[in-house]
C-alpha cells in the first residue's frame, strides 16, 4: 500500500431518504441530511474547506466552502447546508473564487511562511487549500497584528502545539468534545485574540488532556503534530493493522517511512474504533524498538548463572531435548504451556496445538485464567457461549448503561469515548463500583446512580437488584416465557424474592443505601434498552462466575438480550484475550469451546493432526505451579505472559517456577518471569508479523507486518521451530494457513479466512454457513444454548475478611497511560503520566495512620508485604484502598492471595484484607527480589570485549 491520505468527505454521513440534486451540472442522489459538501465529495467534487472534516459535526467557521444555490440569496457554507430536493448548486464561479481567495488572504496574513521547513510540509490542508483557491499575493502584507510570536507547548511527550501555526478552526476543540469526550480544550479569548487553550490555559501535559491524539489527527496544519513527524518527516506508505493493547481492538494506519514507523493513525474505517484512539495505541509504540528488546535466543543451565546468547538452532534444540528428557523422566504430563492473549490467534492456536499434539497432554492455559475465565463459565452456562452479546456500536442504541466492575475511561478508553457520546445524548448511567471512577462524574456526564459497594459484595448487590425487579413486577414476563427455561426462572425468582435478599437486608453488608439500589434496579428494568458492561471487577473475585451469572440473570429477566442497545458485554482486558479463549487455550477446551472429553470433537482434531489427544483436561496455571512445588511438573513454555508479575501471590508463583527444570520464556523483554527461566526465546511485536486478533466484540481483525522482526522470526515461526524440533513436521508458510486450519476444525470459524478479512476489513464470529456475514449480535431469536438458563446465585462471602490485623480492603486496577504489567508502556514516554504505582487511600484512613499525601507506606496482607507511596483521595471509600500493578518494583501481587473463583480459579485480585502503615522504604521482599532480578538479568556476551 502506498501512502494516500484517507478521503475526507468533510461532514459525517447521513442516513435519510434519497434526495436528488444537481451539483455543477451533475445530477446525484444522496441521503437527506447530507451536507452539500459531502454530496459534492461523493461525486469527486472537492469543495475547498478547512474547518470541516468528516469525523466531526459541521461547524461553518472557515468560510472557504461557500457555494451558490439557485434561488437562494448569498453564499451559503456547503458544510452546514443540507441538500434539498431539486437543489441546483454551483461550486466554482468567479464570485466564489474571489471570496475564497479573500478568506485565504486573511489566513495567510497571520501565518508563518516557512512551509518548506514546516513539519507538515506536504501534509498540510492550509497549504493545499491555498493552492486550491489560487492565492498568489497577500495584499495586507505580513506586518499587521499576528500570532507569530506564540510559544510552542512541548510539554506532551508525543506531540507539540505551535500556536503560530494555528488557524483557530476549532477542529481540535471539537475532536476533544465530540470524539474523545474529555472536553479538555477550548478557545480562549475572542475575536482576533482567540486561541486554543488546554483546561484553564495550562500546558497540555498538566491539563485534563488524556493525550488520545484526536486533536492532533484533526489539526489541518502543523499546529498540533506528532513529535515523530517533526523528527522523521512525513510518511511515505501506510499499512492498516490492529492495535496490540486492550480488547477494544482499534485499527490503525501504521504510517511508515521505509522500515521506520513514523506514526500510528487510527483508521476511520475501523469498525471497533471508528477513527479514534487512546494514548497507548496512538503513541506508546516506541517499546517496539526499545534498547531493552532481546533479539538473540539465550540459554543457561540454572537461574543463578548469567544468560548465554546462542543460535536459534541451539536454543530450539535445547528446548526440545529438555522437554523430551523431562517427559521421559517424569511422565507425559510433567510439562505444559501457557498461551498469550497478546499474541495472534494463529500463534495461540499453535501453542495449544504444540501442547496437545506435541506434549501429548492438555496442560495448556492462558492469561485469561486470571481475568475473564468466569465470563467464559458464566455466559456459557446461562446463554450457551463464552462471549459478549453485542458489537460496540450497539451502545449507541442504549437508553440505560450499567457499568459494573469496569473503569472504561482508563481500561478501554476508546470504547469509553463511544459510550460517553451516547451518555451525552441522554442515556442514563448506573455505576456499581467501590471507587468513584471518572464516569461517575465528568464533563457533561453524570451517573444517575453510583452504588459504591464494599469490595466482594457484587453477588449480594446484583441479587438485591433482581429482588427489586421480581418483587416489584418489573420482569419482562413475555420474554422470559418465550426465551428462557421456565423452571429455572421460577426457582430463581423464588430465590431472589426472599426478603433476606432485599436491598434493605444487604444494606449493612454492601454499605449502599437500599433506596439507591431500588432506584437503580427500577431504572435498569424500565428505562428502555439496558446494556451491561463489566470488567475484571466482576470476574476477579471468589464469586466471579456467580457474578457473571447474576448479571446474565438480570439481563434475561428484563428482556435485555438479543436486541440492539442491550446485552451483556464483558470488556476484555487484552487485545486478544477473546481470541486466546476461542483458540482452545484452556486445558479443558478445544477451539470453539468444545470440551476435550468429547470424543467426536477430539476425533476431528486427531484426524487432522495425525495424533492421539489426551481426553483428560489438563492443569490450570495455579495447578501447574502447585504440581511444580509438589515435584510432578517440571517444564513449561510461556509465550508472552509475565506470570510472576501478573499472577497473584508472587511468592507462590516464584516457588513454583523455581521448582521446575526447564522454564522457557518467549517475550520481547527479560520480564520478571524470565528471572526464573532457563531458556529465553526473543519474541516479535505486533508490527513484525501477520495474523489476527479478536477483540471484545468477537471481531476478528488482521494484524499486518509492517517491518521485519528484530529477532528474525515471528512468534508463530518460533513455535513451529519448537514443534518441528520435537518431530511434529509442521509446514506453515503463512499464518493464513493456520487460520484455514482453525476454520476447518472450528464450526464457529468455518467461514473465516484471510481473503474474507481482506475484503470486509473484519468479521465477527460465529461466521459459517448459518451466519455467512458473521454475527454482530448474538442470541437474537433464541439463545445459543436453546433456552436462557437462570442460575441461582447465592451470596457466599469471601474467606478474605478484614479483621484487627488487616482492617482495610485492597482492590486493584489499571490506569489509562499504563498497560497491565507495563512491559510495553513503561518503555515509552507514558511514564510521564504514571511513573510509579501509588496507593489510593481515603483521608480518614490516612489521618488515622498519620499518612500524608506522597508518604511511603507499607502495605501488608497475610500473603506478603510491599511498600509504595500514598495518594490521599476520596475516590475510594473509607475502609478501601486501591492500587495499580503496572510497575514491577511495586510488586502489588506480593500482597494478593491465592483465593480464587470457585468455578474457574480466576484469582481474587479485587479483594485483599490489608493493613497500611507509614514506612521508610522498600520491604525485605522488594530488596531481595531486586537483587535477584539484577543477578538474573546478567547476559554473558558470546565474545567478551577485549
Amino acid at each position: 500500500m502506498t501512502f494516500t491520505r484517507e478521503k475526507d468527505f468533510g461532514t459525517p454521513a447521513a442516513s435519510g431518504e434519497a434526495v436528488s440534486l444537481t451539483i455543477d451540472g451533475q445530477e446525484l442522489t444522496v441521503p437527506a441530511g447530507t451536507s452539500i459538501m459531502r454530496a459534492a465529495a461523493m461525486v469527486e467534487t472537492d469543495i475547498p474547506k478547512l474547518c470541516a472534516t468528516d469525523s466531526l459535526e459541521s461547524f461553518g467557521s472557515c468560510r472557504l466552502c461557500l457555494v451558490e444555490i439557485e434561488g437562494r440569496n448569498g453564499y451559503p457554507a456547503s458544510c452546514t447546508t443540507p441538500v434539498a430536493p431539486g437543489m441546483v448548486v454551483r461550486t466554482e464561479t468567479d464570485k466564489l473564487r474571489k471570496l475564497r481567495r479573500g478568506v485565504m488572504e486573511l489566513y495567510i496574513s497571520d501565518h508563518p511562511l516557512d512551509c518548506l521547513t514546516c513539519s507538515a510540509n506536504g501534509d498540510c490542508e492550509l497549504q493545499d487549500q491555498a493552492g486550491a483557491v489560487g492565492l498568489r499575493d497577500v495584499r495586507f502584507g505580513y506586518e499587521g497584528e499576528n500570532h507569530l510570536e506564540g510559544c510552542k507547548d512541548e510539554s506532551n511527550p508525543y506531540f507539540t502545539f505551535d500556536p503560530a501555526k494555528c488557524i483557530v478552526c476549532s477542529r481540535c476543540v471539537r475532536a476533544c468534545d465530540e470524539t474523545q469526550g474529555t472536553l479538555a480544550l477550548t478557545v480562549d479569548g475572542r475575536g482576533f485574540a482567540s486561541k486554543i487553550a488546554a483546561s484553564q490555559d495550562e500546558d497540555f501535559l498538566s491539563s485534563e488532556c488524556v493525550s488520545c491524539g484526536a486533536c492532533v489527527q484533526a489539526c489541518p496544519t502543523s499546529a498540533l503534530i506528532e513529535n515523530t513527524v517533526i523528527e522523521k518527516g512525513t510518511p511515505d506508505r501506510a499499512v492498516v493493522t490492529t492495535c496490540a493493547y486492550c480488547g477494544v481492538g482499534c485499527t490503525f494506519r501504521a504510517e511508515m517511512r521505509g522500515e521506520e514507523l513514523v506514526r500510528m493513525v487510527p483508521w476511520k474505517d475501523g469498525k471497533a474504533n471508528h477513527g479514534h484512539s487512546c494514548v497507548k495505541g496512538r503513541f506508546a509504540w516506541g517499546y517496539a524498538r526499545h534498547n531493552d528488546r532481546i533479539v538473540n535466543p539465550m540459554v543457561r543451565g540454572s537461574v543463578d548463572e548469567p544468560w548465554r546468547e546462542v543460535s536459534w538452532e541451539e536454543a530450539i534444540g535445547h528446548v526440545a531435548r529438555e522437554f523430551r528428557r523431562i517427559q521421559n523422566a517424569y511422565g507425559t504430563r510433567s510439562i505444559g504451556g501457557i498461551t498469550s492473549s497478546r499474541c495472534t490467534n494463529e500463534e495461540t492456536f499453535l501453542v495449544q496445538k504444540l501442547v496437545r499434539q506435541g506434549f501429548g497432554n492438555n496442560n495448556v492455559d492462558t492469561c485469561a485464567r486470571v481475568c475473564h475465565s468466569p465470563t467464559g463459565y458464566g455466559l456459557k452456562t446461562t446463554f450457551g457461549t463464552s462471549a459478549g452479546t453485542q458489537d460496540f456500536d450497539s451502545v449507541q442504541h442504549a437508553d440505560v448503561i450499567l457499568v459494573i466492575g469496569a473503569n472504561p475511561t482508563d481500561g478501554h478508553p476508546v470504547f469509553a469515548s463511544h459510550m460517553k457520546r451516547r451518555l451525552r445524548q441522554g442515556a442514563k448511567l448506573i455505576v456499581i463500583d467501590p471507587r468513584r471512577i471518572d464516569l461517575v462524574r465528568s464533563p457533561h456526564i453524570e451517573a444517575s446512580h453510583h452504588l459504591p459497594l464494599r469490595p466482594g459484595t457484587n453477588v449480594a448487590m446484583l441479587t438485591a437488584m433482581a429482588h427489586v425487579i421480581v418483587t416489584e413486577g418489573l420482569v419482562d414476563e413475555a420474554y422470559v416465557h418465550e426465551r428462557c427455561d421456565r423452571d429455572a426462572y421460577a426457582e430463581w425468582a423464588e430465590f431472589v424474592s426472599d426478603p433476606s435478599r432485599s436491598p434493605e437486608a444487604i444494606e449493612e453488608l454492601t454499605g449502599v443505601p437500599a433506596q439507591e439500589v431500588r432506584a437503580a434496579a427500577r431504572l435498569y428494568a424500565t428505562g428502555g434498552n439496558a446494556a451491561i458492561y463489566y470488567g475484571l471487577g466482576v470476574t476477579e473475585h471468589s464469586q466471579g462466575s456467580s457474578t457473571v451469572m447474576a448479571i446474565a440473570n438480570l439481563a434475561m429477566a428484563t428482556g435485555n438480550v438479543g436486541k440492539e442497545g442491550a446485552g451483556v458485554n464483558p470488556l476484555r482486558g487484552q487485545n486478544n484475550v477473546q481470541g486466546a479463549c476461542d483458540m482452545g487455550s484452556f486445558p479443558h477446551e478445544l477451539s470453539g469451546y468444545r470440551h476435550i472429553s468429547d470424543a467426536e470433537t477430539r476425533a476431528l482434531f486427531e484426524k487432522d493432526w495425525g495424533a492421539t489427544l489426551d481426553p483428560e483436561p489438563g492443569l490450570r496455571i495455579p495447578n501447574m505451579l502447585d504440581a511444580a512445588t509438589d515435584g510432578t511438573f517440571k517444564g513449561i513454555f510461556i509465550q508472552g505472559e509475565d506470570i510472576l508479575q501478573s499472577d497473584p501471590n508472587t511468592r507462590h508463583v516464584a516457588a513454583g517456577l523455581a521448582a521446575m527444570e526447564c522454564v522457557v520464556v518467549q517475550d520481547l523483554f527479560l520480564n520478571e518471569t524470565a528471572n526464573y527461566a532457563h531458556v529465553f526465546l526473543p519474541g516479535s511485536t505486533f508490527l513484525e508479523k501477520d495474523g489476527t486478533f479478536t477483540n471484545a466484540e468477537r471481531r476478528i481483525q488482521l494484524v499486518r507486518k509492517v517491518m521485519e522482526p528484530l529477532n528474525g522470526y515471528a512468534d508463530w515461526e518460533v513455535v513451529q521451530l519448537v514443534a518441528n524440533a520435537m518431530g511434529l513436521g509442521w509446514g506453515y508458510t503463512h499464518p493464513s494457513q493456520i487460520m484455514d486450519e482453525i476454520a476447518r476444525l472450528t464450526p464457529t470459524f468455518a467461514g473465516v479466512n484471510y481473503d474474507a478479512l481482506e475484503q470486509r476489513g473484519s468479521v465477527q464470529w460465529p461466521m459459517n454457513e448459518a451466519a455467512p456475514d458473521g454475527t454482530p449480535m448474538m442470541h437474537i431469536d433464541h439463545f445459543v444454548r436453546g433456552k436462557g438458563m437462570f442460575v441461582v446465585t447465592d451470596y457466599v462471602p469471601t474467606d478474605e475478611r478484614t479483621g484487627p490485623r488487616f482492617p482495610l480492603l485492597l482492590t486493584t486496577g489499571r490506569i489509562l497511560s499504563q498497560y497491565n504489567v507495563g512491559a510495553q508502556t513503561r518503555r515509552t514516554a507514558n511514564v510521564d503520566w504514571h511513573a510509579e504505582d501509588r496507593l489510593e487511600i481515603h483521608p480518614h484512613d490516612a489521618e488515622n495512620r498519620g499518612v500524608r499525601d506522597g508518604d511511603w507506606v507499607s502495605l501488608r496482607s497475610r500473603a506478603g508485604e510491599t511498600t509504595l507511596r500514598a495518594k490521599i483521595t476520596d475516590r475510594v471509600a473509607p475502609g478501601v484502598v486501591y492500587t495499580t500493578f503496572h510497575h514491577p518494583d511495586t510488586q502489588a501481587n506480593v500482597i494478593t492471595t491465592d483465593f480464587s473463583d470457585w468455578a474457574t480459579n480466576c484469582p481474587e485480585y479485587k479483594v485483599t484484607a490489608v493493613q497500611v502503615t507509614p514506612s521508610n522504604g522498600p520491604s525485605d521482599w522488594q530488596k531481595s527480589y531486586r537483587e535477584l532480578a539484577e543477578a538474573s538479568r546478567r547476559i554473558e556476551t558470546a565474545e567478551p570485549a577485549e
Partner: protein
Amino acid sequence: MTRVFISKDMASVALGADAVAQAFAKAGCEVVRTGSHGLFAIEPLVEVETSEGRVAYGPVGPDDVAAVLDGSHGTRIGAIADHPFFVRQQRFTFARCGVTDPLSLSDYGVHGGWKGLEAATALSAQDVVDAVKASGLRGRGGAGFPTGIKWQTVLDTPADEKFIVCNADEGDSGTFADRMLMEGDPYCLIEGMAIAGHAVGAGRGYIYIRSEYPFAIEAMREAIARSASRIAPFTLEVRVGAGAYVCGEETALLDSIEGKRGQVRAKPPLPAIEGLWGKPTVINNVLSLAAVPFILAEGAQSYADVGFGRSRGTMPIQIAGNVRNGGLYEVGFGVTLGELVNGIGGGTASGRPVRAVQVGGPLGAYFPPSMFHLPFDYEAFAQAGGLIGHAGITVFDDSVDMAHMARFAMEFCAVESCGKCTPCRIGSTRGVELIDRIVAKAPRAAGALETMPQIRNASRAARTHDEEVELLRDLCDTMKHGSLCALGGFTPYPVLSALDHFPEDFGGGDALREAAE
C-alpha cells in the same frame, strides 16, 4: 396628599430624577415612580395629579418642588399627550410606559393589561399564530423576519419541550427601547411571552438581558415573581449576559444561556427547529414580543392597518446622538428619515448642520441628508444599502470625520467578534489597520519579508491609495458575503456607506494631489 408621577427610568435617573422624587416625597407628596414617556429633553419630568388629569412639568430640579406644586413652574407642559413630541405618536407597544407604576399589577390591569393573554388563551394555538401572521409583525431585532412564520415553524415542530427566548441583549449604540420597556412596562413583555408560549406549546421562557441593564434586570425579576401565578403554568427566568455584543446574535445568545462560550452557531438548523438545548425555540426581540399583547387584544387588523409597504404596525424609533429631541418615538412605518431627524428630532443639539445619520446601530449604514427622503421601511432602507436594524438613529453634525467612523466600525467588529469565522475574526483587525493607513495617507510599502529575494510572488511596489481602497472594498465584500453572522456581515455597511457618501474624508483627493506634486 398630592400624587406626583416621576420616572425611574435609567435615563431619567441619570438626569437627576431620584433627587427630584426625594424632594417631592419630603414635601409630603405621594410619589409614584413610573417609566419614562421617552423624551429626555424634558426629564426629570414630574406629572402632578389634578382634577383635570395629570399636569406635566419638565425638566424639573429638586429645588422646584414648590413651584411645581403651586403651578408656577416655568416648564409647565400640561397634558403630556399634547406635547408636540407625543401628539403624533402611535403608542401600541409603549402605551403604558410612563403612565403606570411598572410593577403594579393593578395598574397593569386597569390600563388594558392581560387582555391579549386572555384573548389568546381563548384561542387555539394555531389561531394565535394566525393572528400574529395576519398582523404583519416582523422581527424588531433587526432582521425583520415575519414573527408569525417563525412561530408557525416552532408550533409545527414536534418536541417534548419547547422554549420562548426573549433577546434583551440590546447592545446597539443609540438604542434603548428594550430597556425602556422592561423598566417601564415589564408585564407587557411577560404577557407577550406567555402568549408566545401558548401559541407554540412552550412551557418555559428565558429573558436574556445584558448586564449593563441593572434596572431592567431588577424590574423583570420582580415582575416575573409577582406575575408568576398569572402566567402559570408558563414560567420565566431572567438570564444575564456577560458583556459580549455578539451574544445579541440569537444563536450565540442560546449558547450563552446554555452556559457555553457565546459563539455563533451555523444555521441550519434554525433555532425554531433546534434551538435552546436542541429544542424548538422561539427567539424574538423584546419589541416583537411586546407588540403581541396589542395584536391579540385589539385584533391583528388594528395593527396591520398601520404601516408602510410590507412593514406593518408601529416601530418604537430611538433618536440619539447629536440631536435636540433625543428619545423614543413610536409611530407607524413610513415616516421619512428627514422628518425623524429634523422634524421630530429637531436637528442637532449643537445647532450645526446634520452631516450624517447612522440607522440601525453600529452595523447600520450612514446616510447623508440627501437621502432623508427615505421612508422608514425595511425594504426601502435595504434598497438604499442600509438597514433599519433595531430602529436606532444616531445623528452627527458636520464636525464628524467619517473615515474615523468607518474605522470605528471595523474596530467595534474586532472588539466584539466571537472569533469563530475567519472573515470577522481576522478581517476586522486587518480592516482597522487598512483604514489607519488610508487615513494617514500612508499606503503600504512592501514589507521586509516581501522584498526578500526568497519571496518571488509578492508585489514589491508600494501600494497606491486606490489599491488600498480597493483592498478595503474587497475586504468588505469578503466580510459581507463570507461572515457567519450579521456582526461581520454588516460591518461593511457603515464602512462602505461612509466611503461611498463621504469619500473626501478618506483623503482620496489629498492623496491624489500629493501624488501629482
